[in-house]
């Protein structure tokens, strides 16, 4: 059976912030581009981002990209690549102004400029105690405003979308390893097609559903990570997962850090503003890893709130109805609906909740995927690109600053698009020949699901996977837990190979989709736990009880996990920026 083939200049997998930004660049250049997305573009998880997008516009406080760069390097706990960080911070103003020109409805200051609010870890003058107002916001719906604006621009350029098509596997040229395209499942009909292109970008977003309690949408199943891992690509720095300090207790829904940017703060059961003890300068606006650890410590030491003493409280009633209704209306809506409290009067129960993956597919700041080859730790893979949360550039290193994710999406979405245009134009015009076995992996995965009448239920394996990750790879990590966690994930991974579904329909079979997503989550979990167990230090989001300190001598390096035999390799951090002097590692305090 031969699969039908469709040919394009470029394929973009994913229609969130980075995918849409890249698609826009490609479509504007007049290239034939196909955007594959398993949900309608405005359903992508970028829509849920709340607090803002970072850019040193200096509309309210003095600011410049050097300070932003310093904060990002420090925030990354010195694991971020300083050339990529410089690149991102230098392009921030440009891409944010572009979004404004596209029509993004930013809030405004009295003088008509874009409204900016303070955010965790963003300071003035290289980490002084004065916070920088750097987060450009559209109320607390910045992601929604940005995603819709980017989609609207793609409507204008008549970008070709394949909506509710799920990408399943990459196709590589056995000669030089180049990526030739992807197989994809049309959910409405159950048909599989090969999409071939001269350039393929993965912009599939995060994988936060791999943990039991997550701020992430159902769709965040690490599809790009699974595609890359199955095709033999390594995944970088997967041990680093950000726990957002303020997920709604019990529901996991995100409460933006913008609440604390506007003046809200956290309280323990004694009504104490405990962040003053952990971060005397930045207090509640310390970096997210720092705040999440402080909250977890408060809870562990018995100062948590509620009958189970298992959460803390977020106070914002003192901001007044005007600020809450104007700047944080979405938060009020969420608190009322998911926590049964009105923040105008009440405290909001919150708990650190998995939010963001710092690691991903190794890529450089032009979106090109880079892998080790011989002595070169960053050899360019022809025709393969990654951007957004599924990529590891690495600008976030071991811990991402709030508002740097939306910035990452547009900067690297744009740069990937630019690079792809250049590369496509330099290639001879016909497409390469596809290998004879193109689509074979996909065919066998689907055939197994069609054939199996018994085995493991997808939901059982998924639940066990998420519970195991939650228990063994949390805010604080313990050696025995990690070792046992690796064992457990290996067992669960074997079970995932025996899943079955009772629904065999061709039409919009969501059971099949969930089974295929599970394969991607399994790769994500394995990469995470194996990398975390191996890294014998604490840095950013990885906090080990047995190695409580950062160890720059032995561990200032990026992890590369390979699916084959769970092999780990390492590569150096880029300590040298593009044009300025390096920021030398220092003890990180806020």
């Amino acid at each position, binding site marked *: 059976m031969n699969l039908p083939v469709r040919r394009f200049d470029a394929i973009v997998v994913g229609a969130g912030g980075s995918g849409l930004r890249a698609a826009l660049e490609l479509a504007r250049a007049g290239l034939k581009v196909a955007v594959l997305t398993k949900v309608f573009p405005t359903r992508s998880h970028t829509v849920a981002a709340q607090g803002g997008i970072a850019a040193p516009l200096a509309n309210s406080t003095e600011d410049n990209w050097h300070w932003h760069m310093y904060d990002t390097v420090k925030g990354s706990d010195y694991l971020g690549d300083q050339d990529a960080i410089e690149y991102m911070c230098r392009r921030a103003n440009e891409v944010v102004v572009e979004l404004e020109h596209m029509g993004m409805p930013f809030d405004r200051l009295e003088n008509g400029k874009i409204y900016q609010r303070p955010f965790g870890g963003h300071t003035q003058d290289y980490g002084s105690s004065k916070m920088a107002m750097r987060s450009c916001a559209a109320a607390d719906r910045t992601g*929604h405003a940005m995603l819709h604006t980017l989609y609207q621009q793609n409507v204008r350029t008549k970008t070709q979308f394949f909506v509710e098509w799920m990408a399943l596997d990459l196709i590589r040229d056995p000669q030089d390893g180049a990526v030739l395209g992807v197989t994809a499942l049309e959910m409405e009909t159950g048909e599989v097609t090969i999409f071939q292109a001269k350039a393929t970008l993965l912009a599939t977003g995060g994988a936060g559903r791999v943990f039991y309690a997550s701020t992430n949408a159902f769709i965040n199943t690490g599809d790009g990570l699974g595609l890359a891992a199955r095709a033999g690509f390594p995944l970088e720095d997967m041990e680093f997962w950000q726990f957002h300090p303020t997920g709604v207790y019990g529901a996991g829904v995100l409460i933006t850090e913008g609440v604390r940017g506007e003046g809200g703060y956290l309280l323990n059961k004694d009504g104490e503003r405990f962040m003053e003890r952990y971060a005397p300068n930045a207090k509640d606006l310390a970096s997210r890893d720092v705040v999440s650890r402080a909250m977890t410590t408060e809870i562990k030491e018995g100062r948590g709130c509620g009958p189970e003493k298992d959460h803390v409280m977020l106070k914002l009633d003192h901001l007044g109805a005007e600020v809450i209704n104007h700047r944080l209306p979405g938060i009020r809506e969420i608190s009322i609906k998911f926590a049964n409290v009105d923040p105008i009067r009440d405290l909001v129960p919150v708990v650190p909740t998995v939010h963001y993956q710092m690691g991903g597919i190794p890529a450089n700041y032009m979106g090109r995927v880079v892998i080790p080859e011989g002595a070169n730790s960053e050899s360019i893979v022809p025709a393969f690109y990654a951007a957004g949360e599924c990529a590891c550039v690495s600008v976030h290193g071991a811990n991402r600053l709030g508002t740097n994710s939306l910035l990452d999406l547009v900067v690297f979405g744009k740069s990937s698009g630019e690079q792809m245009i250049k590369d496509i134009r330099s290639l001879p015009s016909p497409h390469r020949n596809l290998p004879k076995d193109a689509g074979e992996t996909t065919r066998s995965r689907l055939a197994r699901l069609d054939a199996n009448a018994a085995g493991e239920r997808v939901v059982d394996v998924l639940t066990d996977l998420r519970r195991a990750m939650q228990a063994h790879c949390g805010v604080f990590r313990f050696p025995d837990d990690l070792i046992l966690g690796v064992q457990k994930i290996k067992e669960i991974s074997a079970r995932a190979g025996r899943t079955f579904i009772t629904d065999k*329909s061709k039409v919009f079979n969501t059971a099949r989709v969930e089974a295929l997503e599970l394969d991607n989550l399994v790769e994500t979990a394995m990469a995470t736990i194996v990398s975390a167990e191996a890294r014998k230090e604490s840095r950013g989001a990885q906090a080990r009880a047995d190695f409580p300190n950062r160890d720059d001598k032995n561990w200032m390096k990026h992890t590369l996990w390979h699916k084959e035999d769970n092999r780990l390799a390492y590569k150096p951090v880029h300590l040298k920026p593009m044009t300025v002097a390096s920021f030398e590692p220092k003890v990180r305090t806020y």
Partner: protein
Amino acid sequence: MKLSIYRYDPDKDDKPYMKDYDVPLEHSDRMLLDALVKVKTMDDSISFRRSCREGVCGSDAMNINGKNGLACVTRITDLPEHVTLRPLPGLPVIRDLIVDMTQFFKQYESIKPYVVNHDAPPERERLQSPAEREELNGLYECILCACCSTACPSFWWNPDKFVGPAGLLQAYRFIADTRDQETAARLDDLEDPYRLFRCHTIMNCVDVCPKGLNPTRAIGKIKELMVKRTV
């Protein structure tokens, strides 16, 4: 709780039918979507869309006891013990609770949902006063869930000709944006017996919008602008 759910799989069913499920609820099940996800663990063949589970992505719009809404922000405690779920009315059903939204998005795209400004873009942001920006509130927040348009009898009758409340709300969002320079062309486009004027202010749209938006008011404002420019 008891859920009666509209089922139809064109791959095997001759016609749609209702199927009942007894859903054992736990303390952590707060929203209707939680109950639906639980049903799927009992019967993996039930199909529905869902993503953000917090009311911002617009995936899980459906007809809940006769009224359109989002399952993820509909509290179980606000519902009776027995709940009937059907797909959004007026759109072709693909399977179970999943409808074909092509026509809905076609109308949205028809209003040119993007700022058009013919001036060369300045170095920095275009300026907009807080009051001017305020005009976009209640408009830009739309999540394109289609609860409103599929609750509108005028849209049921003429989904190909009437833009519908969601599209018209967005039409006004761009008219109201001080950065857009195409107001006249936008009004021309809507000055048509069907595109705008099929709205008979039934206001079902306002009643069902899960974001509390008011398409009827936006439609009224467009009509006002049309009247204003003739006098």
